[in-house]
Each structure stands twice: as C-alpha cells, then as structure tokens.
C-alpha cells in the first residue's frame, strides 16, 4: 500500500513537470523550443553582447572587438558578466574539499578486496591519456564550445580516479596538487584585482577581445577558465585521494 502511494505520487509529480515542459506556446510557463519571442527576454542582450547599449549584429568569425568575445553564450554569462559568481562557486568547492581533507585524511591508502586484473590496468593506461587530453581541450576551448572549467577539471579528476581504481599502489603527489590548486586559485584573484586597477571593476575584462570564434578571443575569459579548470581538477583529485585513504594502524 505504501509503495502504491509512492508510485502514484511520483507519477503525478512527473506528469506535472512534463505537462509544463511540453505545452504549446501561448501563455504557458515553458513555450515550445525555438518559438519564444527573444526580444521579450533578457537573453537577447547577452546573445548580441550589448549590455552597454551597442546594438549591432554579431556575426561568427567576422565581428571584431565585441563586448564579450566568447562565442558560447553560457560562458559569456558565467565568466564575463557574472564572473564573481564563479569565484564563489570555486570557493564553495574549495571549502568542501578542505572539509573532506580535514575529516578523512589518513596516512595509508585503502586497499580493495579484489586485486585489479591485467585488462583493467592496460586499458586504463590507454584510455587515461585520452581522457586527460579531452579535459584539457574542454577547458581551453570553453569560450567556443560547450564545456568549460568545471567539466574539464572534473574530467582530469576522473582520469586520476581511474588510476586509483586500476593500481593498488598508485598515490598522487599530493604536494604538487596542493601547489597547483593554490597557485591557480590565487592567479584567478590576481586577474580580478588587475581588472580592478585597469577597468574599475573587480574581474573586468581588460584584454582585447579579438574576432568572435578564434581561439585567442574573449580577453581574460579563456585564461580564467584555464585557472578554474586546473584548480577544480587538482581539488577533485585531492578529494578522491582523501576519500581513498584510511588511518594508519
């Protein structure tokens, strides 16, 4: 009986969500995809990159010196217009990693009951490099393609996780990771302070933004994303190594 009520509750909730998501336009909460009137929304300002009132069309690969040069709108909002929020998110992640480190930090590494076999070890050696390169690609190209610092950094951490699973003796060089994490985090802040001195705002985009769609465009956005990626990657790797350690006997 209890389960029946639970199933009914889940079904009603799901029906409610999906009926709101997939209704035909006119006046409902979520209009059908692609049929929204963009000029009524805030996002038009971000698509045209014209928060300050410069109302020209933005063309991929042609427009020079747009207000925020990143082709990916999400990155443009997250790291250019609302970069201070990202700083807060990085801080939240840092505090949680610090808490895990303080509570769970042990001396010796936890051993699994079954030994990892040859196929797992060899497969991980092949695939971990590809995962690392994909992670680095994702955070370097964060202003052009979907992705960015957080997904790229966590991909790097997942490569480290694979090493941990496949090799019983594997232990990260914790000191190097701590150094990387601290340096990347402080460089993010230093870029913010540089913007404060040059443009008058904290995290102001003071570098030239170039042509929309090039690798070297969008000013400080790719630089900040590289720092965020390195910081998140080393932080999550440390978190995994903390989870896999136990108190020495």
């Amino acid at each position, binding site marked *: 009986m209890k389960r029946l009520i639970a199933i009914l509750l889940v079904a009603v909730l799901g029906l409610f969500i999906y009926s709101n998501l997939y209704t035909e336009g006119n006046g409902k909460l979520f209009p059908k995809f692609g049929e929204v009137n963009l000029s009524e929304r805030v996002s038009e300002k971000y698509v045209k990159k014209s928060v300050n009132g410069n109302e020209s069309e933005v063309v991929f690969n042609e427009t020079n010196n747009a207000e925020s040069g990143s082709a990916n709108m999400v990155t443009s909002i997250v790291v250019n217009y609302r970069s201070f929020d990202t700083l807060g998110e990085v801080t939240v992640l840092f505090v949680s990693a610090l808490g895990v480190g303080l509570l769970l930090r042990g001396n010796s590494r936890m051993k699994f009951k079954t030994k990892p076999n040859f196929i797992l070890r060899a497969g991980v050696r092949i695939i971990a490099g590809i995962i690392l390169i994909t992670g680095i690609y994702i955070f370097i190209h964060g202003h052009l393609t979907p992705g960015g610092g957080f997904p790229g950094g966590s991909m790097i951490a997942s490569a480290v996780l694979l090493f941990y699973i496949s090799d019983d003796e594997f232990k990260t060089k914790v000191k190097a990771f701590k150094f990387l994490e601290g340096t990347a985090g402080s460089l993010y802040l230093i870029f913010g302070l540089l913007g404060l001195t040059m443009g008058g705002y904290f995290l102001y985009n003071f570098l030239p933004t170039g042509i929309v769609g090039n690798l070297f465009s969008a000013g400080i956005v790719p630089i900040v994303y590289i720092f965020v990626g390195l910081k998140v990657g080393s932080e999550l790797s440390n978190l*995994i190594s903390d989870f896999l350690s136990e108190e020495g006997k």
Partner: protein
Amino acid sequence: MQTIEIIVGITLLVFAFLAIESKKIINSIIYLSILSMLSVVSFVFMKAPDVAITEAVIGSGLVTAVFIFTLFSIKKAGDKE
C-alpha cells in the same frame, strides 16, 4: 522525437523510484548513476549541451565513485568494531 523524449522521461521516473526503494545501498547508487546518465540524454534533447557535459562527468562519474568509496569506508569501519 517527442515520443523518445517521453520514454526517456518515464524511464527517469522509474529509476528514481527504484533508487529510493531498493533494499541494498549499492543498488541504489547504481540506479542513481543510471538516472544521471539518462538525464544527460534528456538535457541534450532540451538543447543544453553545457549542462549535459557537466552532468555526464560529475553526476554519473565522480559522484558515483565518491558514494561507493564512502560505502566502502563505512563497511570497513563497521567490520573493525
């Protein structure tokens, strides 16, 4: 396309229910992992690739691993006493 979206949505609900209701914690974690993998598909249908990448890496990869490691540590601590 619409039917596939609805099928994915219903499967999401089924796995969410299984994750809550399963007796073993390890099964619950696996169902949660499947849930986030299916929600990646759902996010791609909603044209949100940024969220989909993040969900694929964090939701189904790292969080599952962290949950399983926590379960291992709890079991080890229980064995000692």
